[in-house]
């Protein structure tokens, strides 16, 4: 399938998800184009993480559709969500990467190996080339002198940058971030946000769950406000920050203080 320029890179349609009777996502539809940066904001428990986990197949959705570049990964048959075959998923999954709130680096691998191991083991990139690529990425993220350190020897901000490098090493088309700075001290937050801003400048497609309003405003083409498992409002940063919706106003106001 040849993709058109205008085709959505990520598309979720009418996604629903329950956890033991609790409706966490109700009828969520999101589409993201190539090169777009979309932030998702909303109060705790609104389903932001669950949405990212459904998009990255860490969680099975109950109903709805998910596709990358127009290729369906999950779709509905007789009102139930069906997932593509294992082989299809493996191929289509290479479109995306995910950066976790608490990094989840592999503690027994040094920084370099954390970054180059998946390209070597999964993508079968020759070791030398994987290493060169990993070193380039580490340099780009200001970590070249940490290549042979272990994650436990790094600050939280450095660990998060390594995890970003690890995700980038597989050359994904879209990168999801789930509160990438929530586990970090304020001083360390800015170094991670700077890295994400740099990626935005390079037109990396990104979907970012964040509580950093100033950052979201700066970096995003579009902001989505979620609450109670539904999208309450969606628009450009200007539109959202000038929203008439009292819930949106209240939420943004609270975080901006």
């Amino acid at each position, binding site marked *: 399938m040849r993709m058109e320029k205008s085709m959505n890179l990520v598309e979720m349609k009418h996604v629903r998800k329950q956890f033991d009777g609790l409706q966490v996502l109700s009828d969520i539809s999101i589409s993201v184009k190539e090169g777009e940066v979309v932030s998702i904001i909303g109060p705790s428990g609104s389903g932001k993480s669950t949405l990212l986990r459904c998009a*990255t197949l*860490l969680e099975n959705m109950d109903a709805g559709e998910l596709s990358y570049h127009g290729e369906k990964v999950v779709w509905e048959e007789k009102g139930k969500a069906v997932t593509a075959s294992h082989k299809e998923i*493996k191929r289509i*999954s*290479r479109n*995306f*990467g*995910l950066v*976790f709130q*608490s990094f*989840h*680096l*592999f*503690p*027994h691998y040094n920084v370099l190996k954390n970054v180059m*191991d*998946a390209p070597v*083991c*999964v*993508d079968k990139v020759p070791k030398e080339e994987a290493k060169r690529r990993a070193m380039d990425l580490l340099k780009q993220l200001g970590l070249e002198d940490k290549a042979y350190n*272990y*994650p*436990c020897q790094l600050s939280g901000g450095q660990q998060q940058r390594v995890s970003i490098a*690890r*995700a980038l090493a*597989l050359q994904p088309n879209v990168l999801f971030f789930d509160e990438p700075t929530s586990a970090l001290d304020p001083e360390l937050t800015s170094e991670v946000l700077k890295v994400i801003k740099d990626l935005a400048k390079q037109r990396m497609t990104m979907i970012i769950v964040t509580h950093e309003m100033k950052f979201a405003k700066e970096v995003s083409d579009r902001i989505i406000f979620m609450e109670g498992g539904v999208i309450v409002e969606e628009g450009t940063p200007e539109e959202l920050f000038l929203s008439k919706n009292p819930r949106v106003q209240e939420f943004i106001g609270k975080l901006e203080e």
Partner: protein
Amino acid sequence: MSITTILSQLSQGMIISVEIFVLTLLFSLPLGLIVSFGRMSKNKILQQIVKIYIAIMRGTPLMLQLMAIYFAPYYLFGLKITTQYRFTAVIIAFSINYAAYFAEIYRGGIESMPIGQYEAAKILGYNKGQTFFKIILPQVIKRILPSITNETITLVKDTSLAMVISVAEMFTIAQRISARETSMFPLVIAGIFYFIFNYIVAFIMEFIEKKYRYYEG
């Protein structure tokens, strides 16, 4: 009987004891991992069977299990029990007994691993085998090494149980000579042997634990 003859007879026993020790570890460490998979299996029937197996292995004396394995061919199949089978019976009994203990240690280690490690591996595209053997198992081994050390030290002492089916390991021989010569000397030597054996085992295990100390976590 001269000291040299006693020592040379005892040294035959030492070799057997060391053999029991090494072979038991060689079989029970991998077997324990397989058993732990059964114990954690989603298949309820398999899980239940493995649970019962572990309960029996840990709930009855190893000495009794040793005798059961030794006499089983005769009582179950009417086969004649040969002398060579004695040693085999010891290795079988010890391996399946220790596998049960190791299985529970592996399970504890595997279940203590944060789910995030699995999720990170999945997102990066590692398959199930790569995730387990490259990401999970090395970290599990680091976590369980202290418990494994405890079991290996117990195993050194347990090798003397082979005496009940007259396998000529260290303790069997020491006791025989001691009774014949009415002397405590062989038993003292046996005690020293087990002590030194364990000292070496502890030293090796500490060395391995140190090797895993290159990272924290």
